[in-house]
């Protein structure tokens, strides 16, 4: 299934792009991360410590264990620093 993946802040810089479309069989966020990490070193580096990362599914915060379901847009980013 085709899904849109977004990266923000230093994660975007390490992956080297702000967004990409991936064709994936992953059923959860964690499986998607495992697929990405297996692809290339820059992903492995970017996701080396997933506990420091946050994820949003269709623009709502989720967990790494969250099933992807029919989510179209999955965004990864470091903890937010608004305000």
């Amino acid at each position, binding site marked *: 299934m085709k899904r849109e993946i*977004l990266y*923000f*802040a*230093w994660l*975007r810089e390490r992956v080297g792009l702000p967004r990409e479309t991936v064709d994936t069989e992953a059923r959860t966020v964690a499986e998607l991360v495992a697929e990405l990490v297996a692809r290339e070193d820059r992903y492995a580096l970017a996701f080396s410590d997933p506990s420091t990362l946050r994820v*949003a599914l269709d*623009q*709502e*915060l989720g967990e790494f264990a969250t099933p992807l379901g029919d989510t179209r847009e999955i*965004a990864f*980013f*470091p*903890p*937010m*620093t*608004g*305000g």
Partner: protein
Amino acid sequence: MMIRVQNAPFDFGQECNAFAQAQGNIGAIVSFCGIVRNNDTGTLHRMEIEHYPGMTERALDKIAQQARARWSLSDCMIIHRYGTLAPEELIMMVATASAHRASAFAAADFLMDYLKSRAPFWKKEITEQGAEWVAAKDSDEDALSRW
């Protein structure tokens, strides 16, 4: 309930007045303004604020709705900028209006705590020494447990 995510600067005082004048019979307004602060050695060139268009508006709207569900507010507003900001530029503001001061204070404080850790903004500081992403503070995450 006005929520604006914008690159353009805003005028804190003018926004405070516009917000106040839009209210009916209230007794208290609290407003907060966040400003780009230089570091202790004064070497900050600029701050770059990245955000997640779409999710940002949803997150701010949700935070504002939570505040209104929790306190008796007649209104609240949020403005947050993104892009490149110089030291001393205004980053963002919130304002709350209520019949009584306690609700207005608590709701503004709540909005700020949630904005810090639950709205998808990321700050990068560019100094003489280079560029660095601002790290989230544990104390900001801990602040959420107050509510």
